[in-house]
């Protein structure tokens, strides 16, 4: 019950901060447009369709992670997190409430990024493919929200979140198969890439957009992506401190 109360409060807050809400939806759309300008400059033989949706997924991953982590850290610095705990909210309710609250925003981000990419890049996918692409980006957004909650437990202020960007997001760009196949990387680098959730989202997207796609080829990647949600939930529940 308290989970829903916290989620509702987060949605009320987002409604009250229209600038933040608009920015978190418009910013990814602008970045996708910049991506279009970049890809326009590429030689025609570069298979840009292999990069478009995965990069869109990366943008949602990055923004969902960052916004959620920073807002939860703000709860700590403003004292509202401590007040929530003393008022009687349990940490599992707080994590659940945050996940549910930000899922609304992450869903809109995922849909906006996907449909803008399809439109700008003239990607002609079937309805089933578009639906599955949305599901992958949405699942990645959920993982990102959980990752943001988990990372926020290590940060005492907003500035402490930023060192995690080069630690988590940048390796995701280089080592997860987004730009180059992970099989071409040294073993240790490929291993790091396989530890990052974006790797599995990129794998699924690459499979889905193949004309010969069958769901069975992505079961494992889907399972691992969903597994990340539960793993990060448990880790965040263990690391969110109630006492010091």
């Amino acid at each position, binding site marked *: 019950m308290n989970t829903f109360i916290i989620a509702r409060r987060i949605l009320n*807050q987002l409604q009250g901060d229209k600038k933040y809400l608009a920015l978190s939806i418009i910013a990814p759309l602008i970045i996708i447009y910049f991506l279009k300008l970049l890809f326009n400059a590429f030689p025609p033989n570069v298979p840009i369709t292999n990069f478009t949706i995965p990069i869109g997924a990366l943008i949602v991953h990055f923004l969902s992670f960052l916004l959620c982590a920073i807002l939860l850290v703000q709860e700590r610095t403003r004292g509202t997190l*401590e007040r929530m705990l003393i008022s009687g909210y349990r940490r599992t309710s707080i994590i659940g409430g945050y996940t549910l609250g930000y899922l609304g925003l992450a869903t809109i981000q995922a849909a906006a990024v996907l449909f803008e990419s399809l439109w700008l890049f003239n990607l002609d996918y079937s309805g089933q493919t578009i639906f599955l692409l949305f599901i992958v980006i949405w699942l990645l957004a959920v993982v990102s929200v959980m990752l943001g909650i988990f990372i926020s437990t290590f940060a005492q202020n907003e500035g402490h979140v930023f060192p995690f960007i080069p630690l988590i997001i940048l390796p995701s760009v280089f080592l997860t198969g987004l730009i180059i196949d992970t099989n071409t990387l040294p073993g240790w680098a490929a291993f790091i890439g396989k530890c990052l959730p974006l790797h599995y989202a990129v794998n699924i997207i690459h499979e889905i957009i193949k004309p010969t796609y069958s769901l069975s080829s992505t079961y494992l990647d889907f399972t691992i992506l969903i597994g990340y949600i539960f793993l990060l939930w448990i880790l965040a529940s263990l690391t969110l401190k109630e006492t010091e």
Partner: protein
Amino acid sequence: MTNAVEIDHLSKDYGKLRALDNIILSVPQGAIYGLVGPNGAGKTTLIKTLVGTLKPTTGSVKVLGLDPLQDKWKLRKHIGYMPQTAALYDDLSAKKNILFFGAAQNVPDLEKKADDILAFAELTDRGNDLVRTFSGGMKKRVSLCCALIHQPKIVFLDEPTAAIDPHLKIESWNLFRKLAKSGVTLFISTHLMDEALLCDKVTILGNGKIIAVDTPQKLLERGKTKLKYSENGEVKESILDSTPESLANELQKLGLNQNITSISLQPDNIENIVLGIIGEKQNSESTG
């Protein structure tokens, strides 16, 4: 009747820094209890230990007979906490903030209670306005409402009147008195020494240690009073203890001497007395 707060040999360390050192204290129920001391004395650390967000390094704490760590869920139903910062959601209205914190304890008739508490804090007209439009003093009052919505038996107020104007400070203390009259125990920390006079009993904290525990009247009596009088046109001064007996003795000595044409008494202010007590204690520790 058990005490509202019982602290037994409590110490709290942050690494090598000892923030609280061997605190022994009891707070009777229904009192306005003041925790007075300069910034960095350990007041917030003590309050956070009492509300269960800090773990004692050694010693034990009981609030309403319960351990703030072991019995936290039972205890949180009965304690209110107003932190030093407003700790509110700026993008929500005052009423939504109160409803949110009240909902954690499943308060029955929450809507009505939120309206009542807003009226109690004289904020009915602004209840639906966003907190970000409020002044610092009004935010403090909303914060107090959030601490009181579930009708706690004891409320911990950390610097509740810091950085608010004198008029609002008086209003806040009127609210505190109303609460105390209704049987709620108030545990108030402040670095404003004059507020010690408004409490029923006061503990002075310095460098994490208890320096003194006394009533405000007895604290005032620890100061000195400057007696100034004119006798045959000559101004004379003497420094006396501020106890009623000492003043009476001195005035008796002067008698009804017709040559004395004026008398004035200048007692130490509470700030000087408290700082003097802290200084004396620290000097005796460094020399002893």
